[in-house]
């Protein structure tokens, strides 16, 4: 029996708690009475994943078994989640590859020749061949790359199809190959509740023309939160699009969920509650911390980016998209939801080294904002962990550093846009079109490994709800210049940050620390 999540109340027995801080971590003492939200213990994995996948394909929800949907002469497209999932990347074999192999085995037996695989990378950077091989496995990669295995190109008019407009006037434009297939099989990894369902195809295989209907400030402000699909305007929009798509395209959705084992044994202490650390864990912590602090910056980043999580698969469900996603969401909640009573005045988060957009890359200041105010702030069901007008304290060094290949438009966004305003509404109105239609960014997105020109805007919108909600954002240990450019305040220590937050929330605030990763979704009552 896996232990459920825990809300710890810090007392005199509580050891200092681990706090992620970019490419590093620290032990931090919290004031007595602070609350700490821990996720449930990692769920046991499925013992025979191969059999579970096979069972899901043969007994799907709301659909005929997959072999019955396959026939000779048909066009079959298999799309799958890109490099942004899971985090950290999964230790080989990646579950996407295991699922795709079984789908292809069934297709081969049914005599399907016209098969193509597409990375559903939306406006994200293209995946490198090596990254694709890790995701799909050597056998699939060698059979299809590069002829019939490619990244989705959201800027190639020849490879996009406009399928119509929803009743809310939203354009639905997706990858032409997928749209014109007799069957689209979508394989996902549902790391958080935001992923999957109708968000997979309309977003993953969509174009800017389509995405702009839900990736905007208004939608983000109306998504309370986007980790709660039933209360998310973002998901309402993608669901409308998905249902319109279903009128034109037969989709067979396969969703998988993973447990909470986010770190390998060498960093095993990061998966545990601190007071349960063994002597070996304590020794590993000290060794890892010292080695990390002493390593050159480049080596440190290399080591962190090489981390492969020993996730165990907790669920494989296949069939009709909405029916499948109900089961998937329940599995995600089983692993991540912790209930907590009441909101806090101050929410504390230690930001790790990785977010969906800097795998094998650099976490630049805009991504720090996105991870803190976008993702972690939104890790709630019901109402935010912190009250309206409360303060958020983030731990991260916020280096003024950008990956020149992956994030070219981010550099200009940071220099040009944020130096003028940090207001998401103004930014959207004044700058978005210019960046979205910039030919150079478009060229880099299509031919290099760059995120789309509009992507930093989306990252900024991702935090719009938090910016609107919070009274103060303080970053501990951050580069002062970079933090100021983001519109936040920086503090050199946690004590200073609490002192500064006192100006907003008073001198004896209720403090809640969201202890993640492993990821925790707070259900606030």
């Amino acid at each position, binding site marked *: 029996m896996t*232990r*459920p999540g*825990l*809300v*710890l*109340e*810090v*007392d005199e*027995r*509580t*050891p*200092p708690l681990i706090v992620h801080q970019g490419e590093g971590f620290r*032990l931090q003492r919290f004031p007595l009475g602070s609350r700490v939200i821990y996720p449930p*213990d990692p769920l046991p994995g499925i013992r025979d994943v191969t059999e579970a996948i096979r069972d899901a394909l043969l007994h799907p929800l709301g659909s005929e078994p997959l072999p019955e949907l396959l026939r000779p002469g048909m066009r079959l497209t298999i799309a799958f989640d890109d490099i942004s999932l899971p985090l950290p990347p999964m230790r080989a074999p990646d579950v996407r590859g295991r699922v795709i192999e079984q789908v292809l085995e069934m297709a081969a037996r049914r005599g399907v020749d016209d098969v193509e695989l597409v990375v559903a990378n939306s406006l994200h950077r293209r995946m490198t061949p090596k990254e694709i091989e890790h995701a799909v496995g050597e056998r699939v990669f060698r059979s299809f790359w590069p002829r019939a295995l490619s990244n989705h190109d959201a800027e190639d008019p020849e490879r996009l199809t406009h399928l119509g407009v929803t009743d809310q006037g939203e354009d639905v434009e997706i990858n032409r190959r997928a749209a014109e297939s007799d069957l689209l099989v979508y394989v996902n990894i549902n790391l958080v509740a935001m992923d999957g369902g109708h968000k997979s195809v309309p977003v993953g295989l969509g174009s800017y023309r389509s995405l702009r209907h839900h990736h905007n400030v208004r939608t983000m402000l109306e998504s309370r939160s986007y980790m709660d699909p039933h209360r998310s305007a973002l998901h309402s929009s993608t669901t409308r699009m998905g249902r319109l798509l279903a009128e034109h395209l037969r989709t067979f959705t396969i969703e998988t969920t993973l447990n909470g084992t986010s770190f390998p044994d060498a960093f095993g202490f990061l998966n545990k*509650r*601190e*007071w*349960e*650390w*063994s*002597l070996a864990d*304590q020794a590993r*912590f*000290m060794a890892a*911390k*010292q080695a990390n*602090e002493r390593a050159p910056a480049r080596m440190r980043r290399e080591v962190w980016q090489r981390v492969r999580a020993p996730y165990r698969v907790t669920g494989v469900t296949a069939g009709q998209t909405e029916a499948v996603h109900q089961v998937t969401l329940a599995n995600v909640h089983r692993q991540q939801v912790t209930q907590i009573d009441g909101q806090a005045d101050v929410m504390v988060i230690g930001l790790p080294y990785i977010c969906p957009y800097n795998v094998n890359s650099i976490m630049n200041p805009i991504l720090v904002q996105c991870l803190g105010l976008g993702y972690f702030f939104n890790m709630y069901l019901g109402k935010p962990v912190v009250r309206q007008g409360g303060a958020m304290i983030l731990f991260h060094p916020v280096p003024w550093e950008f990956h020149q290949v992956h994030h070219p438009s981010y550099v200009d966004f940071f220099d040009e846009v944020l130096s003028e305003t940090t207001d998401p509404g103004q930014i959207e109105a004044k700058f978005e079109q210019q960046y979205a239609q910039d030919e150079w960014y478009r060229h880099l997105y299509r031919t290099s490994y760059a995120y789309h020109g509009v992507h930093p805007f989306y990252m900024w919108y991702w935090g719009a709800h938090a910016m609107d909600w919070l009274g103060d954002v303080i970053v501990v240990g951050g580069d002062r210049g970079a933090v100021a450019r983001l519109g936040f305040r920086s503090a050199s220590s946690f004590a200073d940050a609490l002192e500064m937050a006192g100006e907003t929330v008073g001198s004896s605030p209720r403090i809640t620390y969201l202890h993640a990763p492993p990821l925790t979704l707070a259900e606030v009552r």
Partner: protein
Amino acid sequence: MAVIDDVRQVASGWRWTRRPLAPHSAEPDPAPYDEPEFNTDWARTPAARATREALLTAVFRPLVWNQTTVRVEGLDRLDEIAAPVVFVANHSSHVDTPILLCSLPKRWRERTAVGAAADYFFDIWWRAATTALAFNTFPIERTGGARATGTARRLLADGWNLVVFPEGTRSKDGWLGPWRHGVARLCCELNVPAVPVAIRGSFVAMPRGRSWPKPGRPPVSIRYGPPLRPGPGEDYHDFSVRVRSAVVRLADEDATTWYASLRREAAGETPSLHGPAAPTWRRVWEATRSPVRRGGSRVWRRRSRTGAPSKDR
């Protein structure tokens, strides 16, 4: 941060020299015990045995016999049997184990291991190592399960005698606590005799919360009973009850006489060791009546009517 600062922070945060404690709000939600069991095999090597024998005879015995007045009875019972056996005793003090081990003849002592609570004695490495060396302890899971008796089975199979306290913990009020049946099951399954042992006075001498015996050399008696063998097909619950009754009778024997205790047992009038059904303070009050001091020399010898000093009993 320098290495030394990290070490200091971890040492204080995780209470290296003290018992690790979970935060109060996390106590009802303990981690599933998945740590490997502390290996105590090294404590039964010849070198460790020699060290232990020296510790017990040169340190513990003089110390305990000096701080308390120990009386040992019934060792002749051991002549009737051969190892391995399980010594089953009541438990109300940390002084019970050294008294029991030091009271045993050397040939028994050097082949005897003591079951100790894994979550108390084996929760921190230095405590686990020192108790294993000094008393030849091995961990027992108080939560039960297959691991609870795994090491005990192995030791019995290797010919080691065991000391087990079926109450699983020291008495809080000096009276006999709930009696667990695991040891009886072990005896039944491996057909090993149980030797009942009654210890009286140790609660008065050094109750919970004390780390040193009370001053005044309080009397403590330890009495060994006749070995009990599980009958053919005997249920381990029945055997467990039989062993507990033997311990209770031994306590009665210690308080009265052997024959009186037998008579009271036959009449079903053996006083219970569960104490009176009364508030805690009254139970403790009753339990802290010391056993009558027997033997021992008087400081001032009573003079006979003729004026010559009389002999002590």
